[in-house]
């Protein structure tokens, strides 16, 4: 490599809700009392208004922080649960983040290796400019399956480039083998898996060492010099077995977050990488492995710049904000695995005028309001005449982002009449510190957390599903800032 490339920043996102695994076991105890043993800890679960796109946006916001968005030259999204089969999903992420139009962009899917293979491709193309790489997954599992306990929903994001590197990319190796430990047919919602013992013995224990050894040989790094060994695997003691076979120190083995997050699919290796970067010190070697129809292995070495990277919520912050959820039926309903009768109000046709949506893309997806160039008034939505009754200037508004502006509740209600997939529907007037005011839907709300004056932050979420046509539309919602 002529020029070093690597990770220049990282971020993570986990949905706030954490499904208590004992609640899953309890729900299935009538048929499968044996599942009780799996009922320990929690797994992250997407709210009804979260998917791979919204989680990727939030992880990217954590990653980008104050970065000038116009400096981004490429955007990638890796996931096996992309909401659109044909409509570039990362395009929604880029719009929400107000990235420019002149960027490379690509979705990566099709395997648990989407995250790592996508990262390898992005790193190898990251010579010029700054690339945003996000991975997110919100997999469904059959009720009462082991996967239902083990899966989690989450996202992570990395910024890649050649300036300000916090972890230098040392190299990668990939083995491709059509080993079907599990699969999900096109159009299917849930996975089908083969016997774990075979997957362990013939899959992980053979394919991963082969892949990692190839990388170590190529880079000339000794297994014993690895400081952080990242290997997503929900089967007990497999990762430690692989480490032992390769000669990697026990202490290097990273926590796979199984206890309180679960396996976030194609995002998990990237999520664990972000977690490792939170703990790592300069000069450490991080080995990242992802199994899936073969395996990917990537090697990074942290730099001094890691210590000066601005603080972020990261994985630790995302874990800390968790709220335990014990309503298993809510979980099923959010994932459309049970059809609750929400009444006729739920029948409303949510057809989206795609031409309107495109015309107002920056305003709706990018949450860009307007600031009057004559009187300075900030408003949302942006309109042709200034809203200030003493101004009303024509065509005077410059776009201004509302996404990161602190705000507070001006008035609100908990509405039991409107249809919401998670009643009651909280919404109200939101007063922004920049002077703008917007009537908004709320999310991530608990009754005890909301009052007039409560501090709010903005989050990117699904607004409505159009189940008739398979479309969904996104907008910003207000969530308690604390």
């Amino acid at each position, binding site marked *: 490599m002529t020029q070093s490339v690597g990770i220049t920043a990282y971020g993570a996102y986990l949905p706030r809700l954490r499904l208590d695994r004992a609640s899953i076991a309890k729900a299935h105890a009538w048929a499968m009392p044996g599942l009780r043993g799996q009922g320990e800890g929690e797994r992250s679960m997407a709210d009804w208004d979260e998917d791979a796109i919204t989680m990727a946006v939030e992880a990217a916001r954590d990653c980008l922080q104050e970065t000038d968005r116009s400096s981004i030259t490429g955007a990638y999204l890796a996931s096996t649960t992309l909401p659109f089969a044909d409509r570039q999903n990362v395009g929604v992420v880029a719009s929400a983040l107000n990235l420019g139009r002149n960027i490379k962009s690509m979705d990566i899917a099709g395997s648990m290796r989407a995250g790592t293979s996508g990262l390898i491709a992005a790193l190898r193309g990251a010579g010029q400019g700054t690339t945003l790489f996000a991975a997110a997954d919100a997999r469904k599992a059959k009720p009462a399956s082991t996967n239902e306990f083990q899966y989690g929903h989450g996202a992570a994001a990395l910024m890649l480039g050649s300036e300000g590197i916090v972890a230098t990319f040392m190299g990668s190796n990939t083995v491709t083998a059509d080993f079907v430990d599990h699969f999900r047919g096109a159009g299917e919602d849930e996975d089908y898996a083969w016997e774990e013992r075979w997957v362990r013995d013939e899959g992980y224990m053979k394919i991963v060492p082969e892949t990692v050894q190839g990388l170590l040989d190529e880079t000339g790094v000794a297994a014993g010099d690895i400081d952080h060994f990242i290997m997503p695997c929900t089967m007990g003691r497999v990762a430690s077995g692989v480490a032992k076979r390769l000669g990697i120190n026990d202490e290097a083995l990273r926590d796979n977050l199984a206890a309180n997050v679960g396996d976030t699919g194609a995002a998990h290796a990237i999520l664990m990488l972000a977690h490792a970067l939170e703990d790592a010190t300069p000069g450490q070697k991080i080995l990242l492995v992802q199994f899936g129809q073969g395996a990917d292995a990537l090697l990074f070495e942290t730099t001094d710049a890691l210590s000066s990277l601005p603080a972020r919520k990261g994985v630790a912050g995302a874990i800390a904000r968790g709220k335990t959820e014990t309503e298993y039926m809510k979980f099923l309903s959010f994932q459309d695995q049970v059809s609750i009768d929400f009444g006729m109000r739920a029948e409303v046709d949510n057809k989206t005028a795609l031409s309107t949506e495109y015309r107002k893309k920056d305003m709706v997806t990018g949450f860009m309001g307007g600031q009057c160039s004559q009187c300075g008034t900030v408003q949302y939505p942006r309109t042709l005449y200034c809203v200030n009754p003493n101004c009303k200037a024509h065509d005077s508004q410059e776009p201004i982002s509302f996404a990161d502006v602190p705000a507070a509740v001006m008035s609100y209600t*908990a509405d039991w*009449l409107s249809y919401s997939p998670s009643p009651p*529907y909280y919404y109200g007037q939101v007063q922004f510190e920049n002077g703008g005011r917007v009537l908004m839907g709320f999310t991530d709300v608990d009754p005890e957390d909301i009052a007039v004056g409560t501090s709010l932050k903005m989050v990117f979420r699904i607004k409505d599903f159009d189940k008739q046509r398979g479309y969904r539309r996104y907008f910003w919602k207000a969530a308690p800032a604390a």
Partner: protein
Amino acid sequence: MARGIKDKVAIIGMGCSSFGERWDCGAEELMVEAFEEALGDAGIDRSQIEAAWFGTAFDKVHVGGSALPMATTLRLSGIPITRVENMCATGTEALRGAAYAVASGAADIAVAMGVEKLKDTGYGGLPAGSKGTLPDLWVPNGSAPGNFAQLATAYSAKHGISSEDVKQAMAHVSWKSHQNGAKNEKAHLQKAVTMDTILGAPMIAEPLGLFDCCGVSDGSACAILTTPEIAKALGKTDIITIKALQLCLSDGVEASFNSWDGSHFATTRVASKKAYEEAGIKNPREEVSMFEVHDCFSITELVTMEDLYISEEGGAVRDILDGFYDADGGVPCQIDGGLKCFGHPIGASGLRMAYEMYLQLQGKAGERQLKDPRIGMTHNLGGAPHNNVAAVAVIGRMD
């Protein structure tokens, strides 16, 4: 300000259907019921009608668009008919159109008709639907109770009145309307209820419980207007005239600027001030005999009594609890039961309010007749506190 239309337009006939869940009736039966009563009351033939205004808001769940349903149902031949829609203020819009036609001399006799057949949707409450292609992309999917409930939180916060006291006053608003509705045989709800029932009702949109919300009804109302001179020529005595008609719409300031505090209706304040001026009313608390206000929710009535300058700002809770707006109070409000109990067939409601004024002013309100009312005021509101249409009418005896 313009000279206005005080005493230029007389109401010579009115009709109002029974409101309620009129399962056996469509919009056509409801319209004819009000129209026949109004024609009989006016003592005219339909061929004398020279223009008409037709108000209906949720056309997609009953009659469909345009004024054709009125023309064909009532067999109004060869005259101009205009359909109007201004959300829940639609009924007053119909009245305004017809009144201006008469006042301008464009028509000698004009009719205002409002109708809504809402109980063909299959569920309670107002129909939900698209808000327009752009609002659908970002405006929350709230309900009417959800929008109005926010008045209560903002009102409590602004005036430092505990939510319990506000809730108590809200309950009294509904209690009073049930008392009044029990004396109205055309009302949707004709049963008095206790304060305990009201306060213990299930929550619809916090802090509004079931009894803080008006129901959704089928119904229609109709007014026949002419000039006072023609009214006299037709042999009418005790003539009732329109003293003022005012309309004020939000211009986006409440929704998108930061000067509004969420606790009141900016539009109602403007419209009522202009109406008092048009009608020549100096001290409304003393001069207006009675009100029919837009009590879609109890909290709406509470803050509206301040916006109409009857209660002082922050004083409505006290006035309500003192019984000032009860049937035997200083200024009776919702003497026919209001939207709360008479019912709320959207397009008809503004005209229904005028109907009660018309009856009261003529001494024809039966068991609920007030003693010698001179001036009545209606207040008809469409939309939500942050974005609405406020329509007021002052109706009185022609002295």
